[in-house]
C-alpha cells in the first residue's frame, strides 16, 4: 500500500510542479491544488498506514486492546485541507481579477514588475 501511495504522491508532485511551470494562470492554480493534495497524502502515508479501530477507549478500558489508527495525521490533514481550500479560493479570485485588469491569462505577459 505504501508503494502505491508513494507513486501516487510522486505523480501528484510531478504533475503539480509541471502545471505550475506552464504559462497559463488556470494551469498554475490546478498545479497548486495538486501540490497541496500531494503534501496531504504524504502526511497521511508518513503517519503510518494501518488497520485499526477508532482511538476511543470503551467504558472501563484502560488500554487499547487492538492498536488504533493514529488520529493526529488525519487532524493535520483536515486542517491543511481547510487552509488550502481558503487559499485556493483567494488565489482564484486574485487570478480572475488579474485577468480582468491585465486582459491575459498568460503568465509570461506579467513582467511589469520584474525589472
Amino acid at each position, binding site marked *: 500500500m505504501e508503494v502505491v501511495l508513494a507513486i501516487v504522491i510522486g505523480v501528484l508532485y510531478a504533475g503539480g510542479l509541471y502545471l505550475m511551470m506552464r504559462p497559463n494562470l488556470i494551469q498554475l492554480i490546478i498545479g497548486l491544488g495538486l501540490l497541496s493534495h500531494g503534501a496531504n497524502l504524504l*502526511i497521511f502515508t508518513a503517519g503510518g498506514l494501518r488497520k485499526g479501530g477508532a482511538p476511543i477507549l470503551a467504558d472501563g478500558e484502560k488500554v487499547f486492546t487492538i492498536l488504533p489508527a493514529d488520529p493526529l495525521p488525519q487532524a493535520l490533514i483536515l486542517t491543511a485541507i481547510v487552509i488550502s481550500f481558503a487559499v485556493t479560493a483567494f488565489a482564484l479570485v486574485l487570478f480572475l481579477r488579474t485577468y480582468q485588469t*491585465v486582459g491575459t491569462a498568460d503568465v509570461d505577459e506579467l513582467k511589469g*514588475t520584474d525589472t
Partner: protein
Amino acid sequence: MILLPVLPIILPLAGAILCMFARRNLVAQKLISILSSALMFGVSIALLSEVRNGDIVVMNVGQWAAPFGITLVVDMLAAILLVLSGLMALSVSIYAYFGLDQDRVRFGFFPLLLIMMVGVNGAFVAGDLFNLYVWFEVLLTASFILLALGGERPQLEGSIKYVTLNLLSSALFLAGIGILYGMAGTLNMAQLARVVQEDGHGGLVMMVAIMFLMGFGIKAGMFPLYFWLPASYPTPPAAVTALFSGLLTKVGAYALIRMFTLVFITDPEFLHGLILAGAGLTMVSGVLAAASHYEMRKILAVHIVSQIGYVLMGLGLFSKLALTGTVIYLIHVIIVKTNLFLLAGAVHRLKGSYDLKKLGGLYKERPGLSILFFLSAMSLAGLPPLSGFFAKLTLIIAALRAESWLIVGVALGVSLLTLYSMTKIWAYVFWKPAPEPLPDLDPMPKGKWFLFLLPMMTLTVITIAIGVFAGSVFDYAEMAAGQLMDPSGYIQAVLGGE
C-alpha cells in the same frame, strides 16, 4: 501572569474583530488598530521582563501537558521579536492613520494588518511545528490580501508571484512536517529535538532539513529563492511594504534560526555551511541588484534581500557570538528597514514619486525629514555610532574568530556597496536640486505633519539609542544566543524532567 504568552495573539485578534464591527467607521478602525498595537507592545515588554533573567515562559493551552497539547514558548529571542513586532505594528498604524488613502482603509487595511500581526506573533510563540505552519498560513493569507489591496496592475502582477511561491514554500514545509511526524511521532519542537538528538535518523533528518531550508528560505528571501521579493514588495503603498519588510521575511528567518539551532544540529558542518554559503550569495546578489535600480522602493526592497544575508550569516557561523550578532542584526534591521520604507512613503506623499531621477532638493524643503532619512540610511550601511555598526561589528568579529575569511570579505564589501546605494538615494532625492520643481501634493498642517512623522522620529531615535546603549542590547542578544546555542534549557522548560 499565566495568560501572558497568549496575549500577543489575542489582543490583535480582538482588535481585528472590533474593527470589522466598526466597518463603516474608519476613524474608529484606526483608533482600535493603534490601541491594540499599543497594548500588544506593552504586553510584549511585560513578557520581555519575565524572561529577562534567563527564564523561559511556557504555556500549555488548556492544561494539556507538553508533547500532547498546544504549547506556547517564549524565550529571549521570541520575546525580543515580539517587542519589535508590537513596535512595528504601532508605528505602521500611526503612519497609516495619516498616510494611507481612504479607499484602502475602507477595504479593510486595519483589520488585515491586525490579523497579520496575529499570525506573526503566533509564529514567534509557537512551540510545535504544526502550529507554526498554521500561523504562517494566517499571516500569509492576510499578507496576500494586503499586497493586492487596491487592485492596481503592478500590485496584481506582484501578488501572483508572491502567492504562488509562498504556497509552494508552504507545501514544502507541510511535506517536511509530515515526514518528521512519520519519523519521530511528534511535532512538539522540544521533543523533536530530543528524538533527533537521541537516535540520529541520519539521512532522513538531512532530507527534511533541506526541505525546511527551502521552504523557509523562500519565505525569508534567501539566495537563490528570493526572486519573488523584488517583484512584489515595491508594488503596494509604503505602509504595507514597511510592515512586510520589517516582519514577514524576518518570520522566515526566525523559523530558520529556531529549527536550525534546536532540531537540525546533527551535522552543522554541512547544514550550517550551506546556510553560510547561501548567506554570502544572498548578500552579494541583493546588493548588486540594488545598485542597478533608480526607484527608491525598488532599491530598498532589494536591500531587504542583502540584509537577510547578514541575519543568516550569524546562523551559518553557528557560534554564540555569531548568533548574538544575528539577534542584534534582526533588531537593527527590523527597525531601520521599516523606518526607511515609511520615510520613502512620506517622500512619495509629498512629491508623488519614488523615481530618483524626478525627485530632488528635498533637503532644502524638508530638512527634518531629510535628516531622519539620512540617519536611518547610514545606520543601514553600518556607520558608527548607529545600530547597524554594532550589529555588523559583532557578526564580523564572530566570523574572524571562526576564521571564515571569505565571509568577512563579503560582509565588508557588501557593507560598502550598501553605503553606495544609500548615498545614491540621499544624493538624488535630497541633495541635488530638483530637475523640475514638483509641487507639494496635499500639504499637511504643521501639527498633523508632526504626528505623521512621529513614528519615523521614534524609530530613528531607537536606532541611535541602540548604538549608544549597545552594551545592554548586546547583553539581551547574548542571552538569546546562549539559549539558542544550548537548547537543553528550552527542552527542559517545555518537557520538564532531567
